[in-house]
């Protein structure tokens, strides 16, 4: 038990350290880094239902977008305090999670995946239609967020936004560490492997998964709100299939079911994309594709899996011969 605590602590400290290093190393890219954090929250939220519960989703951006639009609409209507906006985003995300879970958990496998696609498309369509509130495809512009704690402005350099985002991320990761190492987290992992077994243990499956959807929604909503606050514009892309699919790709790239995988995947994917698209804005897609292929060939279990493979290679049994 002690060891596990220590490991979790170390993980959180590592995240903070990485965040601070990012701040010193790339002081001119803070808007990008803030965006990475917002997306990392989305990917984390996806990890909760995919990595821990085995419910793959290609519609996770519905929850992110719900948070973003809720925060955005609240902000345009005079609620400009950033922490409140994040709370609004989280609540909206959780509500959307409840809705999405209720629908998605009716199906299994591929059909479930398709439900998630249908849901994100419906959200997208609704956001497009409700242009009076959302700005439709022109985006919801004109968010004037007041300074954080009345002091720190969300400015051009994006320091406030970045540090605020980093703090949010750390809080979320700590909370999620508790969630996934609670009995509830273990139950979810059991359901992922064999729901029939879990039912035979006397536990309903649906409410447990639904609960995780709500938590996941809150996390994604937080990410959405952070994106809205730091960008000051909310676009339809925040409830799109593309964002959902990207989130899934980043998660699988990093590795499922560890929380760290979600973070690693997001940073690597977005960082790589940023670098190659700056080097050659016209033909970088090929490079990203090659990265994905290379990762599958080298580390089928995702990048965090690679790390474990390296660790595991030390303790080979008898083998060595071929």
């Amino acid at each position, binding site marked *: 038990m002690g060891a596990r605590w220590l490991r979790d602590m170390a993980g959180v400290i590592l995240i903070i350290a990485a965040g601070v290093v990012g701040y010193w190393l790339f002081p001119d890219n803070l808007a990008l880094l803030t965006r990475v954090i917002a997306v990392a929250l989305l990917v984390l939220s996806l990890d909760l239902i995919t990595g821990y519960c085995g419910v793959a989703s290609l519609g996770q951006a519905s929850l992110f977008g719900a948070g973003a639009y809720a925060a955005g609409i609240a902000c345009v209507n005079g609620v400009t305090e950033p922490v409140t906006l994040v709370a609004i985003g989280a609540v909206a995300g959780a509500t959307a999670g409840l809705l999405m879970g209720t629908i998605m958990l009716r199906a299994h496998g591929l059909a479930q995946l398709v439900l998630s696609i249908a849901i994100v498309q419906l959200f997208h369509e609704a956001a497009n239609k409700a242009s009076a509130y959302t700005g439709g495809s022109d985006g919801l512009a004109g968010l004037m967020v007041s300074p954080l704690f009345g002091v720190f402005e969300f400015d051009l350099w994006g320091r406030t936004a970045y540090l605020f985002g980093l703090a949010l991320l750390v809080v979320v990761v700590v909370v999620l560490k508790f969630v996934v190492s609670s009995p509830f987290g273990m139950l979810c992992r059991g359901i992922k492997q064999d729901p029939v077994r879990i039912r035979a243990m006397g536990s309903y499956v649906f409410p447990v998964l639904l609960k995780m959807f709500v938590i996941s929604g809150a996390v994604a909503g937080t990410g959405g709100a952070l994106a809205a606050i730091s960008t000051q514009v909310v676009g339809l892309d925040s409830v799109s299939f593309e964002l959902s699919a990207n989130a899934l790709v980043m998660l699988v790239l990093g590795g499922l079911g560890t929380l760290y995988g979600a973070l690693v995947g997001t940073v690597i994917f977005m960082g790589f994309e940023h670098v190659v698209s700056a080097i050659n804005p016209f033909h970088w897609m090929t490079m990203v594709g090659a990265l994905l292929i290379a990762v599958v060939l080298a580390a089928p279990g995702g990048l965090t899996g690679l790390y474990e493979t390296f660790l595991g290679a030390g303790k*080979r049994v008898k083998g060595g*011969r071929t």
Partner: protein
Amino acid sequence: MPAASLEVRGLSAGYGPTMVLEDVSFSVPSGARLSILGRNGMGKTTLLSSLMGLNRRYGGEILVGGADIASLKSSERARRGVGLVPQTRDIFRSLTVEENLIVGVKDRPRSVIQEAYEMFPRLRERRTNLGWQLSGGEQQMLSTARTILGRPSVLLLDEPLEGLAPVICEELMGAFTRLASSGAMTILLVEQRLESALDFAESVLILERGRIAWQGTSEALRADQGLVEHYIGVGSLH
């Protein structure tokens, strides 16, 4: 295909980095019956599946009818006459009973599946059911029938009586014995029930932690209660 002899020389095999079998050598003459005994987890299944080519081989030779098949893929081994009834049955769950049998017939005409139905009438009744719908015992029957339809010259049986009603067990053992003594197949049997194993085979091989611990005739083993207790466990033979 008529029965063929089997000879194993210095076989080492396992899973990934885990080596389970070490330097196993034995031989079975054409048309003979060999029982493989050993406690839980001693490597019986590993032995049979590495003869079939389903797991990793670190070294050694496997000669069927004198030809080394150790470097062949399992589909080629099957085509050279090795047939396995796995412990886990491995029914094709999404195929019907009949389709499962069709996969087993290899290059023989489809009509030979009637042989399987004669062996297990129960399967004829369940002909159009999907694999996953079958009861445990029915799956066991299907698995056995499927492999036998391919007329292997060396038949590997991994606990084929598991989960079968006593009356079926009896018939099945009779059938196996007939197949071997008619010269159609050489049979290797892994069986938990010592008595059945000894009744069936003329010779026995005991595995202990992946190595051959004892090899000899059934009679010799039957006679030596101490040996049984040592390798197979107390209270097995009573």
